[in-house]
């Protein structure tokens, strides 16, 4: 392992993930968290990205507090491909030496971060759910779940920079904190004929992707919902409560709902104020994604279901009866 002169590294960088001209929400969440970390470190939070026309994002990253915006624009980088994006990003990091680099733990972010960190010979902590600065050493403390959320580990990276982490969407809140970022545009030469990976086609599957972490109320259903048509009951109650619906993995595997609705270890992590779990057994992998919800209401026919071990309120009953009843009664109370 090569130890670096870590004193050369400064500032907190947040990778701006974008797709079809839109910034991923998690990048804005990380700018907000990055600003807090920068305050503790006495430095600045900066945004960085590569792509085709990325300067357009300056306004939005400024709204969320980025003091500087480092970019590489090149038409060959229009669509995400691991290797050219990696090399362009490694170029930026080598040149400007941030002490912290945060990336969203999305499909793209996880693909990218591991390869960037390896190129830079630095540490990477994946899928963190908490970030803090150690007051005495100023190291970044990155806490992440392992063993399906059964164990938490706080990781740090004392001798290498940048300290890199991918962070789950929905863990931090995106808060507006307007600034006018200075744009730093770097030239990076790469042409299409030098890129060996070609994208042949892209397909949108199912519905549009849903960011479950936006919602303060989530009505989730599991295999106990019986059949696809019954998922409507989740949606009805979610509509009354002004929330959204979600599912367990068995429901996704049964083909009743798209993966974008899945909560859990291999789905999304959520922490709404109210989480209703209907016909969900409460397997560790599911619970890992929802157990930090403020109030959990579980409905299950089996009084021994593990979901009751984490529920604030438990109802032993048939979700196909309880959900419509809730919808009916809550509607009277909530809709004026």
């Amino acid at each position: 392992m090569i130890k670096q002169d870590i004193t050369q590294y400064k500032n907190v960088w947040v990778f701006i993930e974008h797709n079809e001209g839109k910034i991923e929400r998690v990048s804005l969440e990380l700018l907000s968290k990055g600003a807090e970390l920068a305050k503790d470190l006495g430095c600045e939070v900066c945004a960085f990205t590569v792509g085709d026309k990325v300067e357009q994002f300056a306004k939005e990253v400024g709204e969320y507090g980025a003091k500087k915006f480092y970019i590489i624009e090149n038409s060959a980088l229009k669509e995400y491909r691991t290797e050219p994006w990696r090399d362009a990003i490694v170029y930026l990091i080598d040149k400007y030496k941030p002490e912290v680099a945060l990336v969203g733990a999305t499909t793209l972010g996880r693909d990218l971060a591991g390869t960037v960190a390896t190129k830079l010979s630095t540490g990477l902590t994946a899928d963190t759910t908490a970030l803090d600065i150690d007051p005495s050493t100023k190291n970044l403390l990155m806490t992440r779940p392992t063993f399906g959320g059964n164990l938490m580990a706080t990781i740090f990276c004392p001798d290498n920079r940048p300290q890199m982490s991918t962070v789950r969407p929905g863990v931090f809140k995106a808060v507006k904190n307007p600034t006018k970022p200075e744009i730093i545009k770097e030239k990076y030469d790469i042409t299409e004929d030098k890129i060996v990976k070609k994208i042949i086609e892209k397909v949108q599957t199912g519905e549009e992707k849903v960011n479950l972490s936006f919602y303060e109320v989530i009505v989730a259903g599991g295999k106990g919902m019986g059949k696809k048509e019954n998922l409507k009951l989740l949606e009805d109650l979610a509509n009354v409560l002004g929330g959204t619906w979600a599912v367990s993995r068995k429901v996704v595997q049964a083909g009743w709902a798209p993966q974008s609705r899945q909560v859990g270890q291999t789905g999304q992590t959520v922490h709404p104020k109210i989480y209703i779990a209907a016909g969900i057994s409460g397997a560790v992998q599911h619970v890992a994604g929802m157990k930090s919800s403020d109030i959990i209401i579980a409905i299950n026919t089996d009084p021994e279901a593990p979901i009751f071990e984490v529920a604030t309120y438990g109802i032993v009953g048939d979700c196909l009866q309880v959900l419509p009843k809730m919808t009916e009664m809550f509607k009277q109370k909530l809709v004026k």
Partner: protein
Amino acid sequence: MHSLVFIKQVPDAAQVRVDYETGTLIREGVPAIINPFDTHAIEAAVQIKDKFGGSVSVLCMGPPMADEALKKALAMGADNVFLLSDRVFAGSDTLATSYALWAGAQKVIQEVGPVDIFWAGKQAIDGDTAQTGPGIATRFDVPLVTYAVDIKEVDPQARKMKIVRLLEGGTETVEVPMPCLITTEETLNHIRFAPLPYLIKAARTPVVLLNSSNTTIDASQCGLKNSPTKVKKAFTPPKRERGEMIEGSLDEIVNTVYAKIEPMLKQLGKV
């Protein structure tokens, strides 16, 4: 076609429980399995061998008991299996692990021949980092294809593959030259039952042991001491208390639940 599959032996995470008194995991009696995502990588490599010929090598890093996982890989149709096991690897983080596996793979290449396709599961169910595959691809400087859900085309003549991979909210098909490294989703394939000839072969094929003395692994690049990331502390998350069971008629239950959550709904501005 020569495939090299990187696998890990893991405790069956679904069966690991927490001892809240000591704040540790209870692993006794928990079976060790091949990381589920990796079994799909082995299956994919064997299916390609069945179709185009060649061989499948499997490399596992872990303690001596991990040879069990390699025996299972043989039964699934692998031809050569290697266990990279040495105290110097203990405590390796993902950067150090990808180094050790890369270095171990050099030995496999020396013994079996150049690799056309490298495979790994998309992530391990114990650590969940999803970084080892990308790290190895970077070290070999081969194109990386993560989250593969379909191998659409293998063209051994043109030395190209077309692979469908998951994106958020969709999929994309990419074309890459070989060699490349692919990380697999569970939906990539179905694990077949081991055919008898594989089982017979498995019983006869030895696990080749690799360590720091019979490879050119640089011990100063692996293990806890040479890992850039360190664990400051490990702890079990606070247990959520088992809450209150609400009983009564359906109407009563729903009314009680409403009364319980009304303050929260007010706070959210929904009432």
